[in-house]
């Protein structure tokens, strides 16, 4: 499993669930029901300000674990990725790439 952070473009359903993403010039489609949770951020190290009224997204960010296949539909094993969405700005980043064979679920 790799840990890094890279900006990605994500198309979502109305419910906020990711459907497609563009990453490193490639297009991917989400091929299984994703899992979502919220993870804490080390905001005291990452932010310069934390005034009252900062709103959502200071303490945690939304994580989506998605299984994707490269477009156009290839037949190989899907990739498991963790995407984070910043709650304030709505920006997406790719934060982890998992060993494709062992997707963890709840």
């Amino acid at each position: 499993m790799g840990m890094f952070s890279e900006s990605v473009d994500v198309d979502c359903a109305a419910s906020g669930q990711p459907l497609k993403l563009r990453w490193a010039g490639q297009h991917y489609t989400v091929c299984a029901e994703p899992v979502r949770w919220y993870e804490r951020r080390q905001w005291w190290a990452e932010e310069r300000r934390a005034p009252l009224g900062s709103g959502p997204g200071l303490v945690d960010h939304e994580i989506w674990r998605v299984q994707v296949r490269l477009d156009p539909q290839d037949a190989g094993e899907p990739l498991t990725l963790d995407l984070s969405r910043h709650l304030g700005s709505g920006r997406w980043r790719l934060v982890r790439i998992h060993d494709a064979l062992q997707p963890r679920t709840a």
Partner: protein
Amino acid sequence: MSFTHLHVSTAFSAHYGVSWPEELAQVAAADGASALACTDRDGLYGTIKHLKACMAAGIDPLVGVDLAVFDDDGDHRTQLAGRVVVLARGHNNGAGYRALCRLVSDAHARTSGKAGGAVPVAVTRAELASRTLDPQTLKPVLTVLIGPDSDVGRAMGGRRYLRPRTLFKRWLEAMPAGSLVAEVVSQLTTPGKPLSTAHAVRMLKLAEEHHVPAVLTNAVRYCAEDGAATADVLDSARTLKSLPELAAEPLLQPNGQAWLKSAEQMLQLGKEIIRAAGYGTADLKQLMAQTEALADYCRIDPVSDMGWKQPVVPEASVIGISQDPHLELVQRCEAGIGRRFPGISGPAHKEMRSRLEHELGIIRNLGFSSYFLTVAEVSRMILDMGVRAAARGSGASSLVNYLIDVSQVDPLQHDLIFERFLSRDRATLPDIDIDVESAERHNVYRKIFDRFGAERVTLMSMQNGYRARGAVRDAGMALGMDDDDVGEIAKQLWRFSARKFREALVEKPELREFAGRVEQRGFAENQQLDLLVDLTERLDRLPRHISMHPCGVILGDATLLDRTPVQPSGLGLPMSQFDKHDMDPMGMLKLDVLGVRMQSAMAFAIREVIRIHPSKAEVVAAGAHPAGPDGSGPDYIAENGHIDLNAVPLDDEPTFELIRSTHTLGCFQIESPGQRELIGKMAPREFNDLIIDISLFRPGPMKSDMVRPFLEHRHGFAPEVYPHPDLKPVLQETHGVTVFHEQILKTFDVMTGCGLARADEFRRALGNEVLELKVEEFFRREARIRGYSPEVVDNVWGTLKAFGSFGFCKAHGAAFAVPTYQSAWLKAHHPEAFLAGLWEHDPGMYPKRLLVAEARRLGIPILPLDINRSQAEYRVERVADGADAGKLGIRLSLNGIYGLSGAELKRIVAGQPYDSLADLRARSRLSRPSIKRLAQLGAFDSLHRESGGAANRADLVQHLQKLQAAGGTRKGLDIMEGQLALPLGDVELRNVKPGLPAPTLVDNVRAELDLMAIDVSGHLMDSHRPMLDRLGVTTADKLLGLRNGTEVLVAGVRIATQTPPMRGGRRVVFISIDDGTGCIDSVFFHEAQEQAGLLLFGTRLLLIRGTTRRTGPRGISLSASMAWDLSKVETLPFPENQREGTDVPHPLDGISRSLAITGMGG
């Protein structure tokens, strides 16, 4: 669809909850909720505020608590097994709330009431089970929620699959049927972690398996997402660890999802859990329905369940009354007339009678007779203890209080209005405050518990919220900043709210350096400072802990402990979890028994007078008292010399002369620089002037510039102006300026005919945006009908609007003025005893050492510490020989010497006198360091002289030092032991080897400051004198001779720092310094603050440049333009030819006890 949150911590869950009950209730109501729970941790701290907030928001309150449970398998005194939420069921005439109160008291019963006690706040499962059932009906009246933080929930993540099941079964076995529910919570954390959906699913399935209802909650800690960061900081403050440390453990909340989610969001959460469990729609419906069903069970009726606003007073039988309480009150008032108004007749009698009937009528109608009898009972009990007591506050407005000896002020004489205290239209229990000697306060409390029974009495608590300094310290700790750095910053924060930190950075000169650091845009090093400001602002006002209120005692009937939970206070007596804001809603009778040091100081002074002058004749002679009716002295002095201070007439000329001289240091209420200035300008001639003076020296009148016109009219510089002739009788005593609440009431009454009771309602509506408009409408309409011109109406309304909300109640002023007058009277007639009392009880605003200067000014000798003559308290003593022979002096006390223990002190005094050091060692068993310290302070000088030894104090100290160093074994070098019985004098002292130079004055003064925080041998500024002369400094005693507007340099040690509210809201800093010849009050306006910057609040020794301002015939102060730190010699403005500044040794060098010496903390 609506959703009820059953598990919500408010900000009153100290160091845990973030949001105020009002915010939570408003947000819940706005989302369509019909009810909301408050389940604070460890107590019902926010419960009453929650009730109020829910009623205001139009929703039903639910009340409960979040409690730790002792581990049945572990040590029952210390080991915990998770936390549960307990909710009270409602609409059962309080059975649920009663059980909840008692349960919370159980949880605290074993704790010590002191910070850091070993026993945690928790209940055993057995207590929980037994409180759950109502003792009358044996039906469950509490519901226990087993959630993610319970032992069951915490076992969910473990490897032992069966563990949660086993634990859950134990709960089922232990608790009465129908009292348990499973609390399902998902805060959408990382799958498989605590508070994840997976855990919620497991809890749901466990409930299903055992046929226990499950409810959905969000374990709320904050109202909205934004509160999550504040919760992080609170976690840090609670655990005393920084955020990085907590994150590593990991002990922080896993994410920021614990907010009061909307009904829609909670439904989504429910759906997600049900889907993950593999259940269907029916199960979702059931989960949501069970949540609402439990909420319905627990809806509380504030009136029938909690006794909302229903006053409860002790049973008549407890206060020894067998007849109708009102009849009893009437009889006691009758009995009081003879005592208070001997020989009253004619119109005065008629007026008094009609006033009494009026008051009694209102009291009877409100049913408050027992209340007055209760207060009278407490008051009588205190006086029977021989403790000085005085009523304060609006209670002084009542003739009934005066007649039954609760108050000492005649309301008729001072024109005080009963309606300001109590009226038909005001159905809340009035406040009566009783001031007692501070040293006797705890005894008085214990006596009240004895007298009324522990089931009817508890102390009131107070909530201590974050203020700027505490907030910046805890914010700094959360960020992992260096303690010293944060301490430096905290020191500069001076009386402003933490919420205005960023604003203050821009405005306040003393924060300029810090602000500069924040502004430098280097991310790494200054990110922390920027965050520090934000987090400080987040903490502002949040409750930190509760403590014993300084004066509130709650009195009730035998059901009191069913209505408030209690916990041990530091004093050992039980303390309610409710604060003063909760009293009125809960119908609780609160008595303020306030410890006033001045009362102790005065009581001490009177005892000293009688000790030194044990007969009436001697007291009369010593105090120069009038000859009295029969020539033997006034009636208020008893044959044995005891002075009945309360009986001293309020028109003593020497007393007013003293007050006008502005030498009022030590006098109650009138010793501050601002007050001395005002007194100097006003020159009080009679008691009523004192009442006015005290009432004027308040934020309101100062801010709105009432003082200047008042003084101009008083001294006839400008003609008095009345808005209308009808108001002249109302405003005459204050020369046309509205000062008192009583005048506002009368103004309303005169111009609208509304009656005084309604007038007081109107007064209290002033300042309230909504109500004030209605009052204005009424006032204008009615005044117009009565023929007042539009100009008059406009003018008067302007005054009412401006002064109404903060004017001062004359009854308060009158009650305050009594001890003011009494202390000035004592100072005028018995200054030695009075100063000894001040030293002993330290009632004033200045450091004790300033009284030394005052004693010098008054020519009262201060007698040094002496092992045979000094006692455990300051004593007045007749000087036996020397230049002052025959005078009364004050002997320093052995109490308060650094390092001398209470036990040592007791043994010294018990063994006096001593004929030698060996005798002292043998009988007082003093530690060697204590003996050395006493020697440093000169306590053996007279013994030493008597022994005929040739050595000096330095030699003796060195001798003792050697003994101390050599003293390995218990007896060590105590070779002098055997001489105890020989009347040979002190061989040891005689034989101390001379040789060292005698200690310098600076050495002695330093020892005194270091060990006693006072400088007696010389003034601590004396050693600076040569340097000050070179600087051209003017001394305090010369200032009065200078003309107004002279530019001078002054220097001294700081004794007081104040930032009183001022006109226009601009901060003004008063700094008083003492230079050994007197006090100099300097005022720093905006410009000067800019100049002085950091020096304003951080420096002990100051050099100040300023111009003199005359403040009255006998008063002068300084308008400062610049200040320097006197200890930084190189920065001082020496004249050109005097440049070379040599540093001299100073007594303050190396002494860090700033607070006691300069009155400044840090």
